């Protein structure tokens, strides 16, 4: 890992993403990157230097970006279509629906700096809706890697999966998690901490916070199970239903709107199979105020302390 010196604060998944892409592209000439003047923000400058003919930059034009990416995939290449998640998903939604999902085009959409990574820039640049928008589309696998190692595994998988995929590549630095060196399989979530009283189901940047919350809860005598979800779609139904049956209460936590994302997905599942009281942590259906990401995490209870508090009050 090239940014070991920042291990204390954690790793930016975009760096693992870019390094993995270069490694894969070195041995697979079909891999190309597609950018919308986003080579810098997507960490693709090194890719461009190594493979100048395989970085397609369409300029500031996200609809064109996704359409061109679909064409590249149709014609036999493996495009990683990279842009800030807020623009990629909102601006190009119909291209994602028709050109990628409905046409079942094996392109990889890479939503960079999602959630509230651009906290200070305000709600125009927050991407808290992307998961809800994409989750409703058939055919697309939605992967949200939780640390640098899992990011590498997901990128490697996507390059050979030959199917429409969305990878949400976080910018907020996160520590390495236990178990992420394992082989990635879509639809398989993992229990990172055992517990009997309550289950915290966490996604992406919130997995490490959930794990810390379970430790805080332990000191308060609460045994909290932690489930690490990597693919929002397909969801690991069985593991979540089992946790609902065994612990009776579910708290979801995600760096996204609580409407339609992880919280929504788990609620839709459990309401039909095993209705279970739930709390949902994330941005609660509002435009978040402006502020840096740490401020926003604190404000919406997306910290270990905040998650623990929600569990204790449940």
């Amino acid at each position, binding site marked *: 890992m090239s940014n070991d010196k920042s291990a204390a604060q954690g790793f930016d998944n975009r760096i693992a993403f870019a390094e993995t892409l270069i490694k894969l592209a070195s041995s697979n000439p079909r891999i190309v990157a597609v950018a919308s003047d986003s080579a810098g923000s997507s960490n693709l400058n090194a890719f461009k230097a190594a493979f100048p003919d395989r970085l397609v930059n369409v300029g500031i034009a996200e609809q*064109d970006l996704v359409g061109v990416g679909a064409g590249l995939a149709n014609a036999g290449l493996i495009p990683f279509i990279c842009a800030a998640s807020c623009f990629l998903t909102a601006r190009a939604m119909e291209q994602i629906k028709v050109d990628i999902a409905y046409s079942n085009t094996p392109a990889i959409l890479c939503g960079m700096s999602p959630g509230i990574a651009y906290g200070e820039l305000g709600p125009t640049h927050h991407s808290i809706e992307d998961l809800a928008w994409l989750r409703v589309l058939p055919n697309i696998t939605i992967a949200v890697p939780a640390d640098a190692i899992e990011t590498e595994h997901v990128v490697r998988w996507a390059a050979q999966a030959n199917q429409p995929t969305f990878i949400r590549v976080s910018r907020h630095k996160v520590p390495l998690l236990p178990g992420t060196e394992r082989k990635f399989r879509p639809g398989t979530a993992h229990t990172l901490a055992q517990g009997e009283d309550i289950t915290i189901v966490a996604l992406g940047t919130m997995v490490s916070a959930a794990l810390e919350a379970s430790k805080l809860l332990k000191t308060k005598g609460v045994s909290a199970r932690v489930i690490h979800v990597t693919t929002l779609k397909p969801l690991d139904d069985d593991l979540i239903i089992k946790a609902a049956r065994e612990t009776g209460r579910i708290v979801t936590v995600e760096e996204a709107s609580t409407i339609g994302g992880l919280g929504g997905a788990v609620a839709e599942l459990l309401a039909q199979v095993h209705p279970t009281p739930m709390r949902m942590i994330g941005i609660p259906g509002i435009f978040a105020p402006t502020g840096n990401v740490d401020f926003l995490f604190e404000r919406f209870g997306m910290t270990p302390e905040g998650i623990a508090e929600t569990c204790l009050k449940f």
Partner: protein
Amino acid sequence: MLPNSPAQIELWKAFRKEISESDAARTRYMILEQSRLARTEILAMIQIAGMGHVGGDFSVIDILTTLYFAELNIDPSDAAKENRDWFILSKGHCAAAFYATLAHSGYFDPHELSTFMQPMSMLNGHPSKGKISGIETSTGPLGHGLPIAVGVAIAANIQKQDHRTFVVLGDGELQEGTNWEAAMTASQYKLSNLIVIIDRNRLQQGAGTEDTNGLDPLDGKWESFGWDVQIVDGHEPLELLDAIRRGGNEKPRCIIANTVKGKGVSFMENRAEWHHKVPSAEQNLAALKELFS
């Protein structure tokens, strides 16, 4: 996915062979006769379905027939053949014309045309990838075809393939900004392997293009975006073939094909209401009589 039709493929191959050995007059005759047959089928499809876009089908059908029966380097028995020419119908609402063309090229059995828009048919109201082998991407919402075609043309260059990519755009469709995003990209990447053909019938759903959100000077627009532009009569196959076969330069190529919406049936021609009006039984009969006269 509908299976292809080996018998129809043989007929199509014989047609292509004969065209390749014919003089200009015979080539023109054969293409226009094939188009005439397609127009009668389009009428039948729309009559059975009770829905469709007859005006645009009739303006684009001579372009489609010219491409599939005289120009495209394709193999309907191996639709995904490497280094084939690519064709994308961006104005996907003219699916009936596309289906009639694909069926007679052997991509599926022409008898299936009667299922157009019926429950569970593979012949959706708009072309759907995966349902018929010759459809390279699903279209329907306007402004999607050109960006995808640009991606295909860039991929050809990256993979050092020499095939061409054709995309047919409606003129009203050019009001969608994605076309102009992609036009810039094509010019930036010097995609001389990309050929856009615009079905310039000057009418959109509600009114004339120039009365809605005007496109003229259309040739100047494309030229200013860095494209090589030619203007032809879109109902004259020889003009279209000459424009396609003319030696290019480094620029992507745009052929503005002037057409008549509803071409071939006098009471439909140049009338906006025939964008998606369904002929009555009497009108259908009158249209058929005119096409056969």
